[in-house]
């Protein structure tokens, strides 16, 4: 079971217009700021109902090893979620008893290398970006998650909604006790 059809690059040279690139870039930044500020309600309003949010777990393997680690959805993944599943995870924060999130973690998402492409669907756009997500909590707990993302964003009126995201964390061993963050 693989899920690559809509994420794969379908046509070369389908660069989006300046205005569209710009609007989507600003959308990514806004999304990052909402996550930094823990405005999860506002963030989830940016997610499409048919969202698929995937962050595979990746092993270190030799080059000759052809095991498909990124797109095979049957393998272990940090996230392999639909929108209701994301909402379920987030509902933990609304219980008031998520002790480890109190006092709050401080986050910064840095989003860069944004590329926007047209897809075969007129209202959907493929967006590549890199993320650097920094977390700091307690006295000196800190860690950095770095990786790249491939998204599909859909235009809905004047706004955009995230339809698909594959975030690839460039870590083998995650150097932290948990992943209380979305990238």
């Amino acid at each position, binding site marked *: 079971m693989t899920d690559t059809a809509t994420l794969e690059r379908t046509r070369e040279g389908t660069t989006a217009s300046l205005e569209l690139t710009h609007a989507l870039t600003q959308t990514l930044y806004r999304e990052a700021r909402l996550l930094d500020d823990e405005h999860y309600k506002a963030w989830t309003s940016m997610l499409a109902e048919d969202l698929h949010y995937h962050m595979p777990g*990746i092993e270190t393997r030799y080059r000759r090893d052809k095991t498909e680690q990124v797109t095979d959805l049957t393998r272990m993944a940090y996230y392999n979620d639909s929108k209701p599943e994301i909402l379920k995870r987030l509902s933990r924060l609304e219980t008031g008893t*998520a002790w480890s999130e109190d006092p709050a973690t401080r986050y910064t998402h840095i989003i860069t290398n944004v590329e926007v492409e047209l897809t075969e669907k007129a209202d959907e756009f493929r967006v590549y970006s890199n993320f650097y997500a920094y977390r700091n909590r307690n006295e000196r707990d800190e860690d950095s998650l770095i990786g790249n993302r491939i998204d599909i964003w859909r235009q809905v009126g004047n706004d955009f909604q995230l339809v698909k995201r594959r975030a690839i964390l460039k870590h083998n061993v995650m150097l932290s*006790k*948990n992943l209380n963050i979305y990238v």
Partner: protein
Amino acid sequence: MRFERIGREPDYSRYMDLKEGWLDRRIFSDADIYEEELYRIFARSWLFVAHESQIPSSGDFLTTHMGEDAVIVARQPDGSIRVMLNSCPHRGNKVCFADAGNTRRFVCNYHGWAFDTAGDLKGMHEEYCYDNGDIDFKNHGLKNVAKVSSYKGLVFATFNGDAPSLEAWLGDFRWYLDMILDNEEGGTEFIGGCIKSVMSANWKFGVENFIGDAYHAGWTHDSGCRSMNDGMPFPPIDMENSYHASVNGHGWEFGTEGVGDLVLLGRPKVMDYYNKIRPKMAERLGEMRSKIFGSVASASIFPNVSFLPGISTFRQWQPKGPMQFELKTWVIVNKNMPDDIKEEVTKGVMQTFGPGGTFEMDDGENWENCTTVNRGVVTRHERLHYRCGIGRQIEHDTLPGIVYRGQYNDANQRGFYQRWLDMMTHDELGKMPARPEPQLGNVAETRDLPGLFAL
């Protein structure tokens, strides 16, 4: 094998009194005690190294750690499994840098020494530079561990040639293990891949949490329970019909209501699946175990493996110094499950007990703080309370092991630290007491899988 250390030889019994129910915090932070643990516990115990399904074919391998020693686990052409140090006998370099894969040879990057999957030295770069008599290929292979054995898919290895058999090591705990390993025809497998994370915590905190700490679930995981179960808190525990069972330092705490862990997984389809096979499970494992499976439960195999039956997360706490461990997480499923159920289980595990899971996120914070607060010289000399349920031991007709009534209990934790103390204080494992004496003799359901062999 005997391990001698020049360092100090403290009287470890002063770090705990399990009859009174307390532990000294220094066992969670002291560097000397940690070094001693590596010798006396990790170098002498049977350690989990792989599930057979991870290396199904000849040449399949994975790399892991036994204590802090890096090892390769490799499937041989004859179907057996070997475990060897991941270190070249020439200059000590790592010979395999991948987490997993398939190969015919492990070739060292440094001077090209090449080993087959059994670890035998087969050749090297510029072989002619060695004169006759310079090198004996037979004695310069990858060092194999002393013994390898498997129980229903779980492969264990030990550096200790004098170790008792794996069967004796697991003892009657196999009666419990069969609930996850043998609840359905076809046995189990691991889902592909492994999620690893690092915590600044002592490895024992993870093990003891899974071995018996039902008590933290309702509090630590209130938010997780509510998010997975439509706003409902952790279910009330029936203290009459729930238990702690401990065998040789392994432990399983469980209810008998049959659904608790399955509810917390938050996947109705998985619940339906198990309810469908439950009558057959009762035929295979008997009435009692079919009632236990799926209940609120957690378990650990001494020294450093834990799992949640029903929720299906399977994990190992790899020590990396007194104040750090690496947590490896897998998903264990029944081989005969349909693909969509396997997918549901996998998604459910990662949503609850992956690093981004609704339960897991709160545990790490606790274990880290339990450990790091002991940096203080005053703090680390204070005792900790392990007395809960100390008077509730019972004899049970069906349940083997040292059994306590009531799931809220520190009994299995005390059993784990008793075994820890036994190993730290006994030079000869053969003289270590069984806790308890085996009650079941040969467990009827025990069977060997192909690949079992011992060096």
